[in-house]
């Protein structure tokens, strides 16, 4: 397979970022925020978004400095082949774990809310097979898929948020700093971890029509995704209050259940919302699965990634089935999320610093070599 040409526009890059971020974590988002800062949940979500924006900006700046190479390749130029191998392997393993945990979380929500008699293995396998088949496409088609589904994800979420505000109690949002919050930093890290799929920008930039627009794409993408996340938290907290949210595992799903269209045209929109949410999970899973196989393909200097899309399916499935329950699953997600921040923010930061100090810049190199 020949190298795909530069076809990804700035708009498509934005949609890749937004649809990668908005996914399975959106259901539990208000819970994570409230656990950190009770009524200060919107503030901690904002702080998490800002931290994620900083991280993605580092990736964008690196991509603009090395416009023809992905992070897998320019890391070798910056820090040498063997150190870069450690970083690249860490990226590979992290995104493999992220894929498995995303698939498992999806499966748990489905068997809890919709298909109560279906084994969770079946729901996990179905979504993983979908992601595996879709990830066989090249990166341009990958971006088109995200571009296609972008309005389908954003509009329903905005509708639910807007409709839920008619029963909102603004008193629940006060004090905006939270009642003596002790976990503000932890909460910020947990929320920032939800934005980690945006790391896909590190492999998108070499295929952008104009790589110098990468920083614009990143900022717009995080503005849209982060803005939506803050609005979701505001809507959930103002509807239920922070104490009630602590008793809900998936507050955004409960918010969708409690929301109805005007004149009760649709009394409960959670069924329609879940259909949309499945699409959101698919795009997020596609991104992390694609990152997993692309990183290994680039490390091995291969020209095609299709064989890995099928090869890793059983391995990802086994990883997805490791947590024994929903509680241990979320515990694992939280731990991996925080570890992942070292990789998705710390590692690009170190690479950028070293690249500037060593005066390393990219040239017109084939991204596959």
């Amino acid at each position, binding site marked *: 397979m020949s190298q795909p040409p530069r076809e990804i526009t700035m708009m498509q890059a934005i949609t890749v970022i937004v649809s990668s971020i908005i996914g399975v974590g959106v259901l539990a988002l208000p819970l994570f925020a409230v656990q950190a800062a009770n009524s200060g949940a919107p503030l901690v979500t904002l702080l998490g978004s800002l931290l994620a924006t900083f991280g993605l900006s580092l990736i964008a700046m690196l991509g603009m400095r090395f416009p023809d190479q992905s992070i897998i390749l320019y890391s070798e130029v910056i820090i040498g082949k063997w150190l870069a191998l450690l970083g690249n392997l860490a990226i590979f393993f992290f995104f493999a774990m992220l894929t498995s945990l995303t698939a498992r979380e999806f499966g748990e929500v489905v068997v809890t809310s919709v298909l109560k008699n279906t084994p969770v*293995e079946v729901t996990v396998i179905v979504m993983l097979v979908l992601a595996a088949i879709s990830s066989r496409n090249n990166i341009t088609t990958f971006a088109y898929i995200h571009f296609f589904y972008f309005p389908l994800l954003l509009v329903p979420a905005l509708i639910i948020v807007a409709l839920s505000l008619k029963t909102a109690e603004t008193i629940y949002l006060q004090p905006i700093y939270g009642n003596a919050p002790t976990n503000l930093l932890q909460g910020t890290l947990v929320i920032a971890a939800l934005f980690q799929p945006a790391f896909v920008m590190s492999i998108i930039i070499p295929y952008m029509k104009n790589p110098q627009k990468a920083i614009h794409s990143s900022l717009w993408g995080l503005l849209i995704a982060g803005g939506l996340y803050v609005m979701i938290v505001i809507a959930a907290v103002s509807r239920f209050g922070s104490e009630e949210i602590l008793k809900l*595992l998936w507050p955004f799903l409960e918010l969708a259940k409690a929301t109805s269209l005007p004149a009760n045209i649709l009394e409960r929109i959670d069924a329609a919302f879940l259909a949309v949410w499945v699409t959101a999970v698919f795009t997020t899973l596609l991104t992390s699965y694609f990152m997993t196989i692309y990183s290994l393909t680039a490390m091995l200097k291969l020209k095609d990634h299709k064989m890995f899309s099928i090869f890793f399916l059983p391995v990802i499935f086994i990883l997805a089935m490791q947590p*024994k329950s929903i509680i241990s699953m979320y515990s694992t997600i939280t731990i991996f999320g925080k570890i992942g921040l070292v990789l998705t923010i710390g590692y690009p930061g170190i690479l950028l610093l070293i690249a500037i100090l060593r005066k390393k810049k990219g040239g017109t190199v084939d991204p596959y070599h």
Partner: protein
Amino acid sequence: MFTDSNSTGYIGYAISLWLVTAAVIFFLDVRTYRRTGQNKEWKVSIILGWINLAVGLILLILNQMTEWLGSR
């Protein structure tokens, strides 16, 4: 409800996945790479196919032996 996952034991699913993916790699990827002349990818896909087939068969045999020993 949240302490026990709705799981029926995943080893059977995993074995099936390994065997099916091995078949897909052999019948789809290996043939495609050979036809398009991508030699490096062809060799790697053969290795990957054999790995999946071997893992699937070994787990199948071990699983059957475990069940047989458990039933005695």
